């Protein structure tokens, strides 16, 4: 048997239900086939449990492992690194729990915190430049580890409460006003924060290359009270600086 044929056969066996024996192995070693069949799923489930720690805590062992098996069935791994294997798990959870959006939102947060943990390094903001900055025209450079998505549930509170494995987490509930969940890395530590939709729009504009003045013009006109918006924008910029979301300002 050619090597490629043998490798396709063993790959198919590993991904299958294991009921059909594999050609080309010795009679004595047929007892070893289930070892590979079992190890494939076990290692992937363990990897998912590691990355999606809070999602695992929220669902419990049985439901989480069922979801992991659904992911394995739907999305066999195709990357050289196991670190990529969480991609798409959130979508599987969305399909499995359409009435419980907090599950997929927790998974998104778990996943993005891991992505930020290993994400690209960036320089720290030179705060000495800030006093000289022409804020009307200054382009804002946002840390490359920042990512965000709209959320509809109290996922931030859930994630924080699940750190205490012995404690009782709060009930999941829908937010009165949708928020934007942001994830980034400050120095070496991944962080997250729920912000308003308006701040989410400001971040999106900054990432797209808008100047601070441009962001204020774009969003301020819709926000109504000019003084109120100026105060909001100033506070937002202050947090971006203190949280290392802003890594540089340039003309």
């Amino acid at each position, binding site marked *: *048997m*050619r*090597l*490629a044929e*043998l*490798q*396709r056969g*063993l*790959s198919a066996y*590993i*991904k299958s239900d294991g009921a059909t024996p594999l050609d*080309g*192995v*010795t009679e*004595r*070693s047929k*007892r*070893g*086939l*289930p*070892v*590979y069949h079992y*190890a*494939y799923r076990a*290692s*992937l489930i363990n*990897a998912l449990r590691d990355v999606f720690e809070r999602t695992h805590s929220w669902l419990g062992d049985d439901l989480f492992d069922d979801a992991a098996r659904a992911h394995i069935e739907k999305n*066999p*791994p*195709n*990357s*050289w*690194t*196991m*670190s990529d*294997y969480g991609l798409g798990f959130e979508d599987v959870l969305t399909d499995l729990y359409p009435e419980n959006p907090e599950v997929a939102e927790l998974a998104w947060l778990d996943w993005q915190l891991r992505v*930020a*943990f*290993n*994400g*690209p*390094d960036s320089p720290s903001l030179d705060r000495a430049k800030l006093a000289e900055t022409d804020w009307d025209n200054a382009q804002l450079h946002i840390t490359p580890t920042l990512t965000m998505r709209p959320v509809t549930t109290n996922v931030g509170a859930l994630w924080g409460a699940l750190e205490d494995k012995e404690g009782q987490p709060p009930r999941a509930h829908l937010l009165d006003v949708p928020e934007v969940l942001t994830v980034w*890395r400050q120095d*070496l530590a991944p962080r997250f924060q729920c912000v308003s939709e308006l701040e989410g729009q400001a971040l999106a504009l900054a990432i797209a290359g808008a100047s601070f003045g441009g962001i204020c013009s774009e969003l301020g006109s819709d926000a109504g009270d000019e003084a109120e918006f100026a105060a909001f924008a100033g506070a937002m910029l202050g947090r971006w600086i203190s949280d290392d979301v802003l890594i540089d300002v340039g003309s």
Partner: protein
Amino acid sequence: MIHYPLPAFSGFGLGMRTPHYDAYLAGEAPVDFVEIISENYMVDGGRPLYSLDQVRERYPVAMHGVSMSVGSADGLDNAYLQRLKALAARVQPLWVSDHLCWTGIDGFNSHDLLPLPYTEEALDIAAANIIHAQDFLERPMLIENPSSYLTFADDMMSEWEFLAALCERTGCYLLLDINNIYVSGTNHGFDPLTYLGAIPADRVRQIHLAGHSHGRDGLLIDTHDQPVPDPVWALYAKVIGRFENVAVMIERDDDIPPLEDLIAEMEMARQFSQASARVAA
């Protein structure tokens, strides 16, 4: 084929595992070298690379991979090799190793170390892949013998003959895992001493010592989650005299005990080696 020389390194070390990072970062772990899992550091940035840089200032580092897939019929992934090469440039390791195995085909990656049939075709393919890897990385590879639970009807040679032929054809070096030889020997019915006696000793640069578990149907399973068991120690004690100037390491991948326990195992490895040297003298 380009021959890449590889100076020997003699010492005793451990695989660097997360629960013991603080000791390595502080330079307090009494080891001669550490081994890292390459893929854990083939990332863009953040704490893994920051920590690795600190550790590298304190210890020699060997890079051990699990994803090269040198036995793949559809060749190696150059994007993977590029990442590995960049990490090696950063670490300046003692060497770069991976396993005699394949992990997938046609884009599928099982993330397991799957066994090769020991045939002329597989030898041709593995040799070509190793030569490609060495030329891409511009450094020699160490190839480690895996544990296995399967043998193939088409096998034409033993695993030790296959490894010796790979060394001959590619100029690669070897990382011998004594536990894996014991596990595969038990599972497939060969004598580990025959295996170890036939390995070209001058190509061996590193030795792994580890533990295993007992599975169904009399199979031993390479779990690396146990202390080194007596039969593996006995095998090591019998053969360590064959291998001069090698790096010996305790490899524990799961159920990680306190660092002191692993240091004690490492010291036992050192004592067996010293005893063997005294007998030889």
